[in-house]
Each structure stands twice: as structure tokens, then as C-alpha cells.
């Protein structure tokens, strides 16, 4: 019998959603993925946007993409990444929009109601950004987090210019990058 895992599974936070959704961009052969989170408590809005320059989808596929029983994969019959983020946004009373143009790229916008108790926490964004930077060496990833106090931008291109291929990075560099992200997000008082 396999040992069972403790049951705290699921898409528990925004960071995990981002880790998941950027894999879609990577599979669509994107070279640039722009992620942004904009917090605006005054307008009761917490906006997540992910935009890539991948191969995009036909309108027909866009319509089906949020159906949990649709997937472009052949290894399994369900595709839950998009329906889960849609559900998580809509259950705060927010909205979700997916738009795409074949050959140009795809854009996803999820708006969470800022003060709603079901709005997901940010989660370990520093882990996710470092993992994506290490795991997707061909993709340029930018992450911009904006609050009323300011904006922080993490850009893998800038990091790679300094240290070379992040895939070859060591423990010390990864630890540094995580700390840098945490401290900068703290500086603009990003919601955790």
C-alpha cells in the first residue's frame, strides 16, 4: 500500500495558480510571459493578469478552454487549470476573462474581490518565480506586483544578464533570489 499523503492539497493560493498557468504558456511555445498583480483595496480589486506571446488559440478553443472536460492533452481527459482559477475568482464575486488570438498569444485576467474572505492568499510567490526561472530557461518571465505604495518588477532577463543561466544556479543564488523577492514585496506592503 502506498503511504497516503496528508490531505492539504489543492490550488491553495495565487502563486500555485501562476506556477500552473505559466506551464500552459510554455506549452504554447511562448518566449515572453508577462505576469502582473495589481492590488487596489480602494476599488475592492485584486487583479491577476498573465499574458504570453505563444501560439494562441482559435476562438472555438478559447470557448472550450474553461470546460473541465476539455484538454489539449492526450495523457488524460480533464483539464482543470483554467476552470479552477475561474472558479476561485468568481466565488469572490470577481470575474475571469480569457482571450487569445491564434499566432499572437493569450491573455488571462482574473479579478478577485479584494475584501472577500474567499480571496486566495498570494502564497509563496518567491518559490514559484525561482522555480519558473530555473525550469523554463527559454522563457523570459516578468512579474510586476503593484500596490498603492509602489511597484516591484522581477524580470528573468535581467537576472540572467547578471548570473547567466539560472538553471546552473546554486543554492546560494536561489536563496538570494527568494529573499530579494520577499523583501521587495514586503517593501510595497503586498498582501500575503
Amino acid at each position, binding site marked *: 500500500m*502506498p*503511504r*497516503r*499523503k496528508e490531505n492539504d*492539497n*489543492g*490550488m491553495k493560493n495565487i502563486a*500555485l495558480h501562476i*506556477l*500552473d498557468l505559466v*506551464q500552459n504558456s510554455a*506549452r504554447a511555445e511562448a518566449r515572453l510571459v508577462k505576469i502582473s498583480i495589481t492590488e487596489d483595496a480602494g476599488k475592492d480589486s485584486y487583479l491577476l493578469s498573465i499574458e504570453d506571446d505563444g501560439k494562441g488559440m482559435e476562438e472555438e478553443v478559447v470557448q472550450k478552454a474553461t470546460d473541465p472536460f476539455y484538454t489539449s*492533452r492526450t*495523457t*488524460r481527459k480533464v*483539464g*482543470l*487549470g483554467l476552470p*479552477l482559477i475561474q472558479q476561485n475568482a468568481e466565488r469572490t464575486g470577481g470575474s475571469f476573462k480569457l482571450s487569445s488570438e491564434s499566432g499572437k498569444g493569450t491573455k488571462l485576467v482574473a479579478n478577485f474581490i479584494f475584501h472577500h474572505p474567499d480571496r486566495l492568499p498570494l502564497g*509563496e510567490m518567491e*518559490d*514559484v518565480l525561482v*522555480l519558473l526561472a*530555473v*525550469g*523554463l530557461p527559454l522563457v523570459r518571465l516578468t512579474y510586476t506586483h503593484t500596490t498603492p505604495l509602489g511597484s516591484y518588477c522581477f524580470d528573468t532577463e*535581467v*537576472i540572467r544578464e*547578471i*548570473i*547567466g543561466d539560472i*538553471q*546552473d544556479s*546554486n*543554492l*546560494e*543564488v*536561489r536563496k*538570494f*533570489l527568494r*529573499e*530579494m523577492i520577499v*523583501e*521587495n514585496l*514586503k*517593501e510595497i506592503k503586498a498582501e500575503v
Partner: protein
Amino acid sequence: MNKIKSLDDLRQLREGMQAKIKLRESGNNSENIVRIKVAMSTCGIASGAKEIMNFLMDELEQKAIEAVVSQTGCMGYCYAEPTIEVTVPGREPIVFGDVDKFRAAEIIEKYIIHNELVDGILPVNYRSIDN
């Protein structure tokens, strides 16, 4: 208050490590690298693949095992996530399922270092021995 870490600090860190990085680069061309792919799809992520990937990278480095840990998509074993595929030079790739930190440590210690099989192997690349 402490100054927050900036890209300049990263440059300094990099200067200090120049020598070490060179050493790694020269060793990287060989075939003698352990390769691990972590299934990083919705099912894997929801089951904790992020923690496993972090753990594997850090642990392998601490044990000074030359390894590349990368991400892959869903291999179709959603029931057994997190799953990882481990390729040790000279051996067939093996896929392990239900990998938590305990099992990941066991895979490194027993399978990678001492070539002992451990629990949780998924029969994806099973071959009969009659030929």
C-alpha cells in the same frame, strides 16, 4: 532598518562565486549527470510538486550530486502525484509516484546513491527480461 536586497547585491554575490560557477560549467558537459523531471501540471502542483522540486534541488546540491532537476507536464498518473522521473546515468529512467519529502530523501539516498529500489515505482517503462 536593513537595506532590502537589490540586483547590485546579486552582482556582488556573483563576483564572489565566479570560481565555483566555472567549476560547475566544466563538469556539465559529461553524461554523468543525474536527471530528474518533476511533473508540474495542475494535478502535480495541487499535490505539492513545488515543495518536492525545491527539496530535490537543495538536497542534491547539499549532497554534492551532479544533477539537473527540471519540470515536465502531466505524465498521466494524476492519481499518484507528485510524480518524478529519475534518470541515473547507465540505468533506465524510473518514474516514482506519491513522492513526498520523506520519499524524495529516500530516492536520493537509496536509489540514486546506492542503487537500491524503493517503494512507489510506477510501471511505465516496464520491460520483460526474456530478450
